[in-house]
C-alpha cells in the first residue's frame, strides 16, 4: 500500500498536513463502517478494509519518521535499524553528552533543565527533518540521506525520555 497514493497526494516529504488531515476526514466520512450499517456484508467488509487502510496511511504520513520510511521504501531503500548505516561517531558522542546531561538533570530534579534539553532536541529534530525534506526535493541519492533517518530515531527516543521524566515528576 502506498500511503501517498491512497490519500491522493504527491510523494514528497514536506506535505501540507493540515490539508491532508481534511482529506483524511473526508475519506473517513465516505468510508466509515457506520455509514454502511445498512449495507451488505461485502460492502461493510470492503468499507472496513478501506477505512482501516486510509487510517493507516494517515498515521504514516503525519509522522515524520514513518513518512520518511515510506519514502525510502518507495525508492527501494531498505529501512529498519538493522538495515541502516550506523550513525557517525561524532553524532553518537554528541547524543551521549546530551543524555548524560539529561540523567544529571533528572537526578537533581531540575525540571527546567529537562524541559530545555527537550526543546533543544526538538529543534534539532526539526532541522534534520528540513535537511531530509530538501534532500528528497532535490532528488539527492536517497541512500545518502539514510543517516538522517537514524538521527531522527535518536532524537525521538530522547524526547520520549524527556516526556517520561516530566510525566513521572507530575504524578
Amino acid at each position, binding site marked *: 500500500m502506498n500511503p501517498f497514493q*491512497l*490519500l*491522493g497526494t504527491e510523494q514528497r516529504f514536506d506535505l501540507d498536513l493540515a*490539508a491532508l488531515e*481534511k*482529506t483524511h*476526514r*473526508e*475519506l*473517513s*466520512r*465516505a*468510508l*466509515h*463502517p*457506520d*455509514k454502511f*450499517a*445498512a*449495507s*451488505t*456484508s*461485502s*460492502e461493510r*467488509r*470492503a*468499507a*472496513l*478494509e*478501506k*477505512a*482501516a*487502510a*486510509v*487510517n*493507516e496511511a*494517515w*498515521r504514516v504520513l503525519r509522522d515524520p519518521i514513518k513518512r520518511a520510511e515510506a519514502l525510502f521504501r518507495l525508492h527501494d531503500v531498505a529501512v529498519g535499524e538493522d538495515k541502516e548505516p550506523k550513525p557517525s561517531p561524532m553524532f553518537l558522542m554528541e547524543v551521549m553528552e546530551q543524555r548524560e546531561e539529561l540523567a544529571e538533570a533528572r537526578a537533581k530534579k531540575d525540571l527546567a533543565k529537562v524541559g530545555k534539553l527537550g526543546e533543544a532536541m526538538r529543534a534539532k529534530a526539526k532541522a534534520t527533518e528540513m535537511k531530509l525534506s530538501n534532500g528528497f526535493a532535490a532528488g539527492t541519492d536517497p541512500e545518502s540521506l539514510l543517516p538522517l533517518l537514524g538521527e531522527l530515531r535518536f532524537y525521538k527516543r530522547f524526547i520520549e525520555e524527556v*516526556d517520561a521524566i516530566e*510525566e513521572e515528576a*507530575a*504524578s
Partner: protein
Amino acid sequence: MSNGLLEIFDPKAPPKPIGIDLGTTNSLVAYVKNDKPVTIRDCDQIALVPSVVHYGNGKGVVVGRHAQTLAAEHPRETIVSVKRFVGRGADDPETRRLGPYEFAERRDGEPNVVKFRVRDRVLTPVEVSADILRALKRQAEDELRSVGGAVITVPAYFDDAQRQATKDAGRLAGLDVLRLLNEPTAAALAYGLDKKVNGKFAVYDLGGGTFDITILVLDDGVFQVKSTGGDSALGGDDMDRALAEEIFRLGGRDSKDASPSEVRVVLDLARKVKHGLTEAGIVDVELPFAGARNASFTRARFDQLIEPLLARTGVACRRALRDAQVKPDDLDGVILVGGATRVPAVRTYVEKTFGKKPLADIDPDEVVALGAAIQANILAGQSTDEVLLLDVIPLSLGIEVGGGVVDRILPRNTTTPAGARATYTTQEDNQTGFEIHVVQGERELAADCRSLAKFTLKGIPPMAAGLARLEVTFRVDADGLLSVHAREERTGLEQTIEVKPSYGLDDDTVEQMLLDAIDHGEEDLAKRKLAEARIEAHRVVTSTKKSLAADPDLLEPGEREKIEAALSALEEAAKLEDARRITLRIDDLDAATKDFAGRRMNRAIAKAIEGQKVESVEETVEHAKGVEEAHAWRS
C-alpha cells in the same frame, strides 16, 4: 403510557432503535423521540435501573431497585456491580476485592472467566449482564412496543476481552447490537449535537466502577477522539469502599472478619453517606453493629479519604493531554459524566486540573444513554444528522516475540477502524508451527500485559531457520474489536481467528447459553433464527439493489447476471422456513458482490479526494481574490 395520555399505536411504525448505558452501578435505556433523545422511565418515573441482579429459588430473576432491597438479606445471591467482573479472569486481583460473593473453581481446560456460585447455579458476568440488558429491553418494549437495534456503551478504556464480553451479553439478551460505543464519545455526541459546539473538549467520566478521560475535537459533526486513558477499576464504588473501611474502623471492627451480609449493609450505608455529603457538610448515621452508636461524617474527612482516588484520575488526565498534544489552556470545555462527578471534591479537582469550570448541564447520569440513543438512531438510518465518530484504541495491541517482549503492532490512540501488518521469521531449523500470542497493554513484557489470545499456525513444511515468513495482520473494527489473520508467505498457509479471548467465551458457549436462556429450547431458537435470517435477507437484498442502481457502470460483463441470479436465489430461500439455507444464499450473494463492493469503495475514495482537491483550488481562488480585493482597496 408513561405520560398518562393515550397514545395511538401505529402498527406499521418501524422498530425503534435504542441506546443503552450498561453502567457499574446504574443502567439506563434511551431513544430518540421527535428528534430529541429521552430516557425511558419505569412506572415510577425513574430512569435509573440499579445494575443489581437477584437470583431467587428456581428460575426467578429480579433486576433493579427490587433486587437492591434483597441484596442485604441475600448477599451471595444478589450480584451488584457485575461490570467490574466483565471480561476478567478468575485470578484477576480486581475480582478478589471487598465483596460478599462466592466464586466457582475453574476447571482444567475451561476458559479463564470468573464465575459466581449462586445457589445451585454457576453464572458468568456475561449472563448476569444479559439479565440486566433483558430488563432494560423489557422496559423499552413497555414504552415503544417494538424495539429495534441497540447501541450499548462501554468505557473507552475497556480492553478487547471486556468489549467482547459486553457484546456477547447483548446477543444473549436477544438484542441486535448495532454497535459498541465508548461512553465519553457518547457523552460528547449528546453535548455536541445539543449545543452545536466546535472545539477541543475533555470528557471526565467517573462512574461507579470505571474512570475514563478522553480528549476529542468536535468539528462540524465530526467527533474525533485524540486520546483516551483511564482505569477500568476505579470509580464511585471505591469511594464507598474507603468509607466502608472507615465505618468498620469507627465501629471497632475489622472488615476482614465481617460476614457477607454485614459487608453488604456497610457498603450500602457508605453509599448513603456519600450521597448525603454531596448536599450537606456533615452526615450523622447509626452504625450498623451490635451495641450501635452514632457517628458523624464530615465532608472534609470524606474528601481526605478519596484524595488518593482523585490523584489517580489526575495521572490519567495528564497522560491523555500529553498523548493528544493538548494543553489544559487549549481546551474549550470539560464535560462531566458519571454519577460520581456529583461529589463536590471531584468537581473541585477537575476544575483545578484543567483550570476551568466543568460543564454539567446535561444530567451526568443520563448523558451517556442519550448519546447512545442518538447514535442508534443514526445507524438505523432514522436521522438526518451528519455525524461521524472517530474513536481510538485505548491500549496498544501487540504480539509476544523472543524473550517474552511485546512487539507493538497498533499503538494506543490509533484511530479505528485500524489495520496493521507485521512479518516474523522462524527461529529454528525445521520449525513447523508458529505460536502467536496476542496481548494488549503498555508494558514491555507480554507477561505484564493482558493476554487476549493464543493460537498456533501449524503445517509449515520444514525449512531452514529464517526462511519461513509469517505475516500477521491485525484488524480492529469500529466497535474496537480485534481480529487477527496469520499467513505463511511461502506456502500460502493461512489462518484467521476472531480473537477468541483467553479470558472470554467462545461462540459455542454463547450459543449454548442462548439455548439455555430460552424456556422452550430448540424450537424457539429455530424460530428466532429464522426471523433474524429473514430480516438480514431483506436488508441485503434491498441494499444490493440500491448499489446496482447507484453504480451500474462499475459492473463488468456478466457480473450483473451473476449478482441477479444470487439475488433471486436468496429471495426464493427467504420464502421457505429454513434459516440455514437463507444464510447460505446470503453468503453466495456476498461472494458474488465482493469485487463490485471493492470497486464501489474505490470510487468513494476517488470522489472524496476529488472533492477535497476542488475545495482546495476554490480556497486558493478565494484567497487570490481576497488578495486582489485587498490590493484594490489599497490603491
